[in-house]
C-alpha cells in the first residue's frame, strides 16, 4: 500500500495525525518508565566499582543521548523548513527545542549529582561537560532568537541558521571523550570488551525508549498548539470542531 507522505506535510492533516499519536506514545512512555525503573532498581545488581551511585546512569545516559539526538532532529527539521519552505517542518523544530533544552538540563543536573560522589566534584571544565553546557546555550539561543522576531516565517529562517551552524557541536560532545583527555567515562553501551551486567543494559535501553516515547508525546502535543496558533486565520482551523 502506497502512503502519500506529502499529505502529512500539510499542517491540517498532521494536526489530526499528531492528535491520534499522542496517547499511544504517552502510554508507551509510562509503561516503559515503570519497567525501566523496576529493572534499574530491583533487578540490576550493585556496581562493583561505583556502588549504588551508578544507578543515576539509568536516567543520565538516556537524557544525554536524547539531548544530542533531539538537537539533530530539530536542526534537520529547521533545515527542511529553510530549503523547502515547508511551514510544518519549522513548527516541528520550534516544538522540539524546549524538550531538548530540558533534557540537556537534566543531563547536566544528573551528571553533577553523579560526579560529586564519583569524582568528588559537582562540575569540571572538562571537554564533555563544557560542550554539553554549550548545547544548552544553543537550545536557549534558538528559542530566544525565534521568540524575538515577530514575523514567524522570518523567525523560522533565522533560528534555522542558528540550529544548523550549532549542530557542529553535537559530534564534539559525542567524540569529546576520545579526542581529549576527559575525566568522563566512555560509552556505557558497547559491543566488545568489558561490558556491564545484562540487567544494567536492559534497564538502560528500556529507559532510553521511555524517554524517547515521552519526548515524542510531549513534542506532538506542543506542535498541535503551535499549528493552531500559526494557522488560526485559515478555514480548516475555523472549522475545527474541538475549538467550538
Amino acid at each position, binding site marked *: 500500500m502506497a502512503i502519500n507522505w506529502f499529505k502529512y506535510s500539510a499542517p491540517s492533516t498532521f494536526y489530526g495525525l499528531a492528535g491520534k499519536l499522542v496517547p499511544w506514545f504517552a502510554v508507551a512512555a509510562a509503561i516503559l518508565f515503570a519497567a525501566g525503573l523496576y529493572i534499574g532498581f530491583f533487578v540490576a545488581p550493585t556496581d562493583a566499582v561505583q556502588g*549504588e551511585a551508578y544507578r543515576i546512569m539509568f536516567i543520565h545516559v538516556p537524557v544525554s543521548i536524547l539531548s544530542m539526538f533531539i538537537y539533530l532532529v530539530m536542526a534537520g527539521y529547521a533545515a527542511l523548513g529553510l530549503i523547502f519552505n515547508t511551514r510544518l517542518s519549522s513548527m516541528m523544530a520550534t516544538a522540539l527545542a524546549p524538550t531538548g533544552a530540558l533534557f540537556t538540563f537534566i543531563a547536566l543536573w*544528573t551528571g553533577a549529582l553523579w560526579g560529586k560522589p564519583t569524582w568528588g566534584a559537582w562540575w569540571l571544565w572538562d571537554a564533555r561537560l563544557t560542550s554539553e553546557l554549550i548545547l544548552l546555550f544553543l537550545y536557549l539561543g534558538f528559542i530566544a532568537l525565534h521568540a524575538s522576531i515577530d514575523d514567524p516565517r522570518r523567525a523560522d529562517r533565522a533560528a534555522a541558521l542558528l540550529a544548523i551552524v550549532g549542530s557542529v557541536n553535537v559530534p564534539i560532545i559525542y567524540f569529546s571523550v576520545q579526542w581529549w583527555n576527559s575525566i568522563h567515562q566512555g560509552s556505557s553501551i558497547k559491543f566488545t570488551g568489558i561490558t556491564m551486567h545484562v540487567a544494567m543494559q536492559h534497564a538502560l535501553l528500556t529507559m532510553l525508549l521511555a524517554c524517547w516515547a515521552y519526548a515524542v508525546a*510531549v513534542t506532538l502535543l506542543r506542535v498541535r*498548539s503551535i499549528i493552531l496558533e500559526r494557522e488560526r486565520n485559515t478555514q480548516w482551523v475555523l472549522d475545527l470542531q474541538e*475549538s467550538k
Partner: protein
Amino acid sequence: MDWSEFFAMNGRGLYVWGSYGMALAIFTIEIALVRHKRKMTLQQLRMMRDAGVEE
C-alpha cells in the same frame, strides 16, 4: 526487603533521588505547561471566532 535501606542507597540516596526527583519534577512541569498551552490556544480560538461572529 528493607525499604529504609533501599531509600538510603548505601549513603548515596541524596544523589540518586536528587537525580530522579529533578527528572520527575521537570517532566511533570513540562506536561502541565504543554497541556495549559493547548487549553489557552483553544480558548483564544474560541474568543477570536466569537468576536468574528459579532462583527
